[in-house]
């Protein structure tokens, strides 16, 4: 068993929730764009490390999900591919065609998440841009 699998799930889920919620505060994401996610749980799983992070969106903010219900949407990929997506170095459909990104469950939710992330205009942040 890999080391990371032994780590509890909660801290990374909290961290991800905080980061997602920060998106609202900074005006990067409009809440009504995420309306379809209300009450839904999303599980993000890494196939190489065998870790998973689950969050639930309550219509106002994300928080860690620690329950036992099956997630509404599962997104599965490797850590490096998740990073490449986050940094806009990769296109999700490109990864999907080659099976490096698998999305199961409610596909509509997956598209919402993907389109909301794609629409974030990082140039509006007074921070170093992830990639020029």
């Amino acid at each position, binding site marked *: 068993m890999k080391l990371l699998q032994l780590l509890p799930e909660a801290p990374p889920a909290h961290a991800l929730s905080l980061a997602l919620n920060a998106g609202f505060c900074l005006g990067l994401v409009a809440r009504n*764009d995420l309306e*379809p996610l209300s009450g839904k749980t999303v599980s993000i799983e890494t196939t190489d490390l065998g870790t998973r992070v689950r969050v639930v969106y309550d219509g106002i903010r994300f928080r860690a999900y620690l329950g036992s219900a099956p997630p509404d949407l599962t997104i599965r990929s490797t850590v490096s591919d998740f990073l490449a*997506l986050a940094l*806009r*170095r*990769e*296109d*999700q*459909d*490109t990864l*999907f*065609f*080659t*099976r490096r990104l*698998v*999305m*199961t*469950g*409610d*596909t*509509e*939710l*997956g*598209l*919402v*998440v*993907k*389109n*909301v992330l*794609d*629409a*974030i*205009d*990082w*140039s509006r942040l007074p921070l170093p841009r992830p990639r020029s």
Partner: protein
Amino acid sequence: MELVCPAGGLPALKAAVDNGADWVYLGLRDSTNARNFAGLNFDEAALAAGVAYAHARRRKVLLALNTYPQAATWARWTQAVDLAAAKGVDAIIVADLGLLDYAHRTHPKLKLHLSVQGSATSHEAINFYHQRFGVRRAVLPRVLSLAQVENVVRHTPVEIEVFGFGGLCVMVEGRCALSAYACGDSPNTMGACSPGHAVRWEETPAGLESRLNRVLIDRYAPGERAAYPTLCKGRFEAEGATYYAIEEPASLNTIEMLPEFLRMGVRAVKIEGRQRSPAYVAQVTKVWRQAIDSLTRDAERFRPTPEWMAALNRHAEGSQQTLGAFSRPWK
């Protein structure tokens, strides 16, 4: 020759402009365009910002209003036309006869492009749109051979735009009710083919399955390349054989035909993919900009480089590329 690139959001528009698109086409966040997907597309503020960004760099913006309005929601489409005129959009892409008529009468200065959804495959049809509505440009459905494209170009004053790269409709655009038959949402009326709400991906013991409203589209063995869950890219059984009965998943790539397009007078090439990410838009636009620049410098010596082909191949559906209807080994 002009390069027309897709944008599903402001970051993609910037990626297109920064990497050399002459035109960027986009849609509003509703059923007025043929990529009506959750979270995708532009609201008014983003449209204004996009137009400003493009115009500051002397590029043009196209608003796609390429679905077929219905009586109850007619005003949504006319308001979108009005919005395009008010926001300084350089041209709109329209398919519906009534909407073309409205735009032509109400905003005579707003340039009109005939959408591929208008299914105009002959110069007779295209010239009709020109005479009646002053259409400046027509996007050809992806069903004509090179010779047929040339014949159209030769017989019309309308600028001709062809698809250069990206996802490929096997059916004549504007003439496909397959998605509507399976799940109710149609490209013509809803602006959606195989919409997310009707699609289910599931890992099963038999493999990764894609379903559209419960209809099994395909089943992929581990490691087998996946395709969009559209009916035309699925595997079905006919006369005892199970195969890609309509078309293998593949992307169109016509980069090697650029000299031919130039010679016959094609005015613009279009990149498909408003549903794809800024990364795709940036990488594909960059390659096509280089190709068109190379073509403009010396059409005689134009050769697609292995780097271009590799960069484009990465993004192809099923990681396969095809010349589509332009060249027809299957003809």
